């Protein structure tokens, strides 16, 4: 067979095998992306055809961001949730993985029990936490009372612990009255941390890949367990920490199902659970403002790309790849 026709048939086979994905790429990514960009400059309610309005949707978004309404509130909510839940997941994931990699009897049992919450469907987990976080009869407040913490309002309180309003509450605080600092977003973070098992599994795999000789060398140098963690485990884990930071960020910004179920689709109380995903969904499918929602999606995409790029840029200062060493 002449070589030329062989090349030709190889190329044809390549295109044919990839055809389902190529179709999907065009129909589910290229066209939707293009349409989103276009509609973000339009007014569009699904029924009438899109009508060009220029930068109007974007100026509305910037106005709302300034006035902390609608999109602005959703942006603040999302930043609060992501900036707390992602680092907390990373720290807790590493600590649990270090604990679970210690040679203990029953290790498999601890690992399974800590991972198990991650296989619970989000809708079921949200239903469960709605009950656990009940201010009167919930388990969480009951457990907190054991260690002397007053009952918190959780999902009934719009104000979250690390917000400016909290300073006011602390200033007006008189001894004896119960301090109710934790609100709906803190509840969401708590629920997210319960599902940290996914990250733990990734860290555990990475820890078992660290060569034992590194620890032996550290021991010969007289390193304490704390120093071994700081100077052997953490640097060796840094590529995985980086991966989990990026994935955790992307995942947290896309959080939707839990806030929808926890607030029955409203983002209540006081819009405090309106993360960007929910805000965007409601703008599109209950207000039928497709253009405005598309503009929001595009800003979200740009923001996420920027954040990921910044993470990548900083990674060269703290991520150690073994190959380079």
């Amino acid at each position, binding site marked *: 067979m002449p070589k030329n026709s062989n090349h030709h048939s*190889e190329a044809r*086979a*390549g295109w044919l*095998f990839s055809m*389902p*994905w*190529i*179709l*999907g*790429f065009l129909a*589910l*990514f290229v*066209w*939707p*992306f293009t*349409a*989103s960009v276009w509609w973000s400059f339009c007014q569009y309610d699904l029924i009438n055809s899109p009508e060009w309005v220029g930068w109007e949707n974007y100026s509305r978004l910037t106005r709302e961001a300034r006035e902390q309404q609608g999109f602005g509130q959703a942006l603040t909510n999302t930043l609060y949730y992501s900036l707390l839940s992602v680092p907390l997941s990373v720290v807790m994931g590493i600590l*649990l993985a270090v*604990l679970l990699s210690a040679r*203990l009897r*029953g290790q498999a*049992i*601890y690992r*399974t*029990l800590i991972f*198990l*919450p991650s*296989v*619970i*469907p*989000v*809708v*079921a987990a949200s*239903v*469960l*936490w*709605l*009950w656990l976080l009940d201010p009167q*009869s919930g388990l969480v407040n*009951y457990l907190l009372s054991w260690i002397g913490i007053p009952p918190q309002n959780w999902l009934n309180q719009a104000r979250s612990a690390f917000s400016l309003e909290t300073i006011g509450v602390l200033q007006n605080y008189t001894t004896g009255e119960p301090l109710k600092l934790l609100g709906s977003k803190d509840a969401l973070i708590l629920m997210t941390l319960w599902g940290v*098992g*996914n990250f733990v*599994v990734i860290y555990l795999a990475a820890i078992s890949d660290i060569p034992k000789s590194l620890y032996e060398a550290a021991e010969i140098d007289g390193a304490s367990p704390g120093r071994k963690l700081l100077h052997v485990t953490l640097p060796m884990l840094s590529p995985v920490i980086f991966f989990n930071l990026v994935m955790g960020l*992307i995942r947290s910004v*896309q959080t*939707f*199902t839990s806030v929808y*179920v926890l607030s*029955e689709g409203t983002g209540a109380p006081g819009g405090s659970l309106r993360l*960007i*995903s929910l805000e*965007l*969904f409601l703008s*599109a499918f209950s207000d039928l403002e497709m253009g405005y929602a598309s503009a929001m*999606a*595009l800003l*979200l*995409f740009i923001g*996420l*790309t920027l954040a990921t790029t910044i993470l990548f840029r900083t990674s060269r200062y703290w991520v150690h790849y073994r190959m380079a060493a």
Partner: protein
Amino acid sequence: MNQRGLKTICLYLTAWFMAALFSLPLLMMISGSLKSAEQLTRDPYSLLPAEWNWSNFPEALSSMPFFVYLSNTLLLCFGCVIGTTLSCALAAYGLSRVSWPGRNWMFGLVIATMLLPWHITMIPRFVLLSELGLYNSLWAIVLPTFLGEAFFIFLLRQFFMTIPEQLLDAGRIDGLSHWGLFWKIVIPLSKPALATVALFQFVTTWNDFGGPLLYLNDPKKFPLAYGLERFVSSYGDQTHLLLAAATLFTIPMIIIFFLAQKTFIQGISTTGIKG
């Protein structure tokens, strides 16, 4: 007691404490689903119900069209698992065992789609699938899986690349085309990887809430995840029934996890995706 023994005891205590803390909510869900409404208000915290109130389950089942929801969920899972495994295996073969000029940048595009948030494609996809007449049809959720999913293409491609070239050469000598190599050699050798993809897709579809929320509006077509959320809106005060329904919805996932624990853990630790 020496210092080493003390350290070991501390480690054990912490491990037990954390394991207990993480499993407590789950245990509460199961025990709560077995308490009567009256017992749940009187004594919500005990882990063992004073009397086992099994009747919560039939009551929860009859308060919603449970078996309609279940059969919709199973239909969706069945369709999506077939769609994903087929389309992703095909694409992964084309992107690993066929040498053609566009291959590498095509694979780059596959990876790029993983980083695109769903928000930006959601509205046009909705318009597209509605135009195709798929609004309020299970096909709106199943059809896209026949067009590939980047994570799974990536996973299968990595696996296909480990198959020795000699095996494929032997097939070529026997006169097999790429189509024949794919079905007779690559697919039979890749059963573990295909099982991983099928498992993850099953779990994803079982748990999926956004898709049904967006595309389905006829309660006769709701899957369990969506049905359960609707149940919360109408039976919000009947905690014992809610917990029973949530438990029923969760148990299959726990069983699957224990049956396929190794696949789960390996799948997550090699690709970092959530089940």
